[in-house]
């Protein structure tokens, strides 16, 4: 039985997160009049897009009981390689093909992660730490280490970089990449809720051995999952390149903490088996809110990293406490009425 309060709180503390975000927004509005403007809002949307795509991937892996830190390397590897190839081949492949190539490259790198993890049953953190460095090394050694500027990028890409969906009166704009990002988000939410594959991810995260016993093909599901997450990272990498209007092989890697913090804050369980798209979106928004606007309210930017670190610890602590609470045995003895 759920109490009204419990319902409000949400299955993965989503309600609590909304409350925190509201408090932060109110506090920042009071601290700085510059905060509460359409410009700030749309900048927040813009800066949340890439982290959200990455966070969705991290969330999927976390639900399955693992953790992935190789996604930034896969993202920039796939995006940069695709750009490099189109420039070196002097081709403008068109947007669709560019995205397809990048996602195939990302998918293959994810596949490698998945095969190593699922077949040899290795700890995901160590494997992805390793592949992160390997992918980055290959990228810098064999593909290229030079910054690609806006002028060099294929025209179809740069054209999209400048495509605004809506210029807001009073400053700020909505970038058109918001459409594919929202689509992908909805698609993943649908997959988790309505497909057997999605439910299998939850099942594996809940109890891997039990999953094997009921006939879920654990290895196959994991391999597909890591491939999907690789392709997702590549998609995020392309959005990153388009928004930034440049391709820098040294970028993205190093942003893992923000993403993982967002996912954990969003209620995905580091113990596996729990997580929701809504929670992840909220987590990303909260982290970006803090990242973008601490300066605005007068906190030096040097504190930004520490703030994100604290958020991560906060999220994990909240989860661990909830975990302990849920494991406590219910008291079965009925209370005796005092005479």
């Amino acid at each position, binding site marked *: 039985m759920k109490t009204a309060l419990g319902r409000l709180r949400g299955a993965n503390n989503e309600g609590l997160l909304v409350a925190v975000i509201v408090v932060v927004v109110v506090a920042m509005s009071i601290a700085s009049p510059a905060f509460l403007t359409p410009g700030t809002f749309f900048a927040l949307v813009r800066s949340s897009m890439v982290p959200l795509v990455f966070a969705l991937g991290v969330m999927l892996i976390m639900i399955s009981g693992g953790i992935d830190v190789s996604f930034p390397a896969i993202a920039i590897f796939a995006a940069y390689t695709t750009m490099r190839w189109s420039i070196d081949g002097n081709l403008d492949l068109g947007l669709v093909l560019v995205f397809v190539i990048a996602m195939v490259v990302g998918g293959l790198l994810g596949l490698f992660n998945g095969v190593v993890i699922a077949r040899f049953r290795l700890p995901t953190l160590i494997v992805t730490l390793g592949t992160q460095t390997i992918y980055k090394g290959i990228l810098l050694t064999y593909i290229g280490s030079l910054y690609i500027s806006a002028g060099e990028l294929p025209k179809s890409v740069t054209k999209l970089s400048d495509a605004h969906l809506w210029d807001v009166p009073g400053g700020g704009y909505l970038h058109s990449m918001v459409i594919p990002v929202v689509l992908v988000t909805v698609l993943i939410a649908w997959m988790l*809720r*309505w*497909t*057997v*594959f*999605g*439910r*299998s991810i*939850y*099942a594996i*995260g*809940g*109890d891997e*051995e*039990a*999953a*094997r*016993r*009921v*006939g*879920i*093909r654990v290895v196959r599901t994991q391999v597909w999952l890591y491939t999907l997450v690789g392709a997702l990272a590549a998609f995020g990498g392309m959005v990153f390149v388009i928004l930034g209007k440049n391709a820098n092989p040294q970028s993205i890697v190093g942003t893992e903490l923000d993403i993982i913090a967002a996912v954990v804050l969003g209620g995905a*369980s580091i113990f*596996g*088996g*729990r997580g929701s798209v809504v929670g992840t979106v909220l987590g990303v928004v909260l982290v970006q809110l803090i990242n973008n606007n601490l300066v605005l309210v007068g906190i030096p930017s040097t504190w930004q990293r520490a703030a994100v670190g604290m958020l991560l610890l906060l999220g994990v602590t909240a989860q661990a406490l909830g975990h302990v609470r*849920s494991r406590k045995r*219910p*008291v*079965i*003895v*009925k*209370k*005796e009425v005092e005479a």
Partner: protein
Amino acid sequence: MKMVAQPVLEVHNVVKTYGGVHALKKVSISLIPGEVHCLAGENGSGKSTLIKIISGVEKPDSGTITIGGKERSQLTPNEAIRSGVQVIYQDFSLFPNLTAAENIAMLSELADGRKLSSRKRIYADADQIVTELGLKIDLGADVGSLSVADRQLVAICRALVGEAKVLIMDEPTTALTHTEIDRLFTIVRRLQERGVAVMFVSHKLDEVLQISQHLTILRNGELVETGPSSDYTRRSIAKAMTGREVSEDRLLEPLDANAPLLLEVKNLTRSGDFTNIDLSLRRGEILGITGLLGSGRSEIAEAIFGIRPAESGEVIVAGQAHKIGSIRDAVKAGIGYVPEDRLTQGLFLDISIADNMVASSLDSYRTRFGLLDRVRIRKSIADLFKRLRIQAPNVTAFVRSLSGGNAQRVVLAKWLDRQPSILVLNGPTVGVDIGSKEEILAILREQAAAGMGIIIISDDIPELVSSCHRVLIVHEGRIASELVGDDIHTDEISKRLAA
């Protein structure tokens, strides 16, 4: 015309070795629709291996498996499930993070090879089986929040949601109380009427005799006996399982009438759990505390050991009043405790036997300089290892590699090493096979004879009968009655528990 029922599942001459060790040696078994077939055997006798082979999780080295008249040479879990073989594992193998409905229906979704999942269909499927079996389960609740008994019901429903022809239940009653076991048996009989072949794996002999029509006994991977259950008695089964006579009579030396009081508990109360508990324990006495699950018996033990302290009441150890507010207080007062779930609460599984034994008493091995006295530690370890007859190559073996009975002995060693004057054991032989159980109880009786006061919290009536001087029966947080000496026998305890 009378038809002889065809076996729905036949295992023929199955052999399985793990790294040269024979887990199963030419075992054959056949299951007939509508029959409950018991598979009995001690831990390590090969029961689990046989289940894994039938369910397709492990492949046999040689031998054949025939399901529904068709030989299956490459049996996978999926194929086993599709051909109607369902296993309810001892740990239930449920997903704690998913709802009861989803746990129940997931199998059929997978077995049907569906790609899309529908919440509506899942609830409908789950609801159908729950109603059919006449059960009450909160389908929308996460399984992690359900009680153990309800989880088992979920596991049963899950197994039956498809067209199960063979149902294998691995130690289904371990975590259940008497009433819950009765309910489980009702369900099993209902399944039998539906023509399901049930394989019931257990080492609780009463249950084996009560529920099954046919019996197969394994020992050390070999099939030692098989036949109609009516041909067996508790004693003959126990003998077949262990290969030696096992006695279940009262095995206690009578208590010295002048033995001094070791422990006195007066008016111990914690609201919602137990009220006004008075009890006493004398030197050399073994006191049993029993009651239904949720009666408060474990809570009383936990309060005496300070895990969850009582709100009011007195605890007097050897004439001296002690305030037990924490585990430290209890240890200082000379009380030891062996917890209910020995595997997760009592032992470090990936550490050696030796280190486990001294883990809780390292303080007492400190030298003048605050360092550990290795010579003395090694001596105690060797002594305990021998005294408790732990079967392991040597003291450096990991606890994880031990069988249940031996692991339990390591826990005992850990507490004996602190030399407590009072030892409280919660379910000391839960999940332990007959042979080891006898030995554990023998060790406890020895310790009592040497002057220790022992309290056993237990559900296992034969154990209370064989090894307790006195038995207290707890009902709804109060001590309802007391049995002393020869008044302690199986029927009397059962009667009082049910009252």
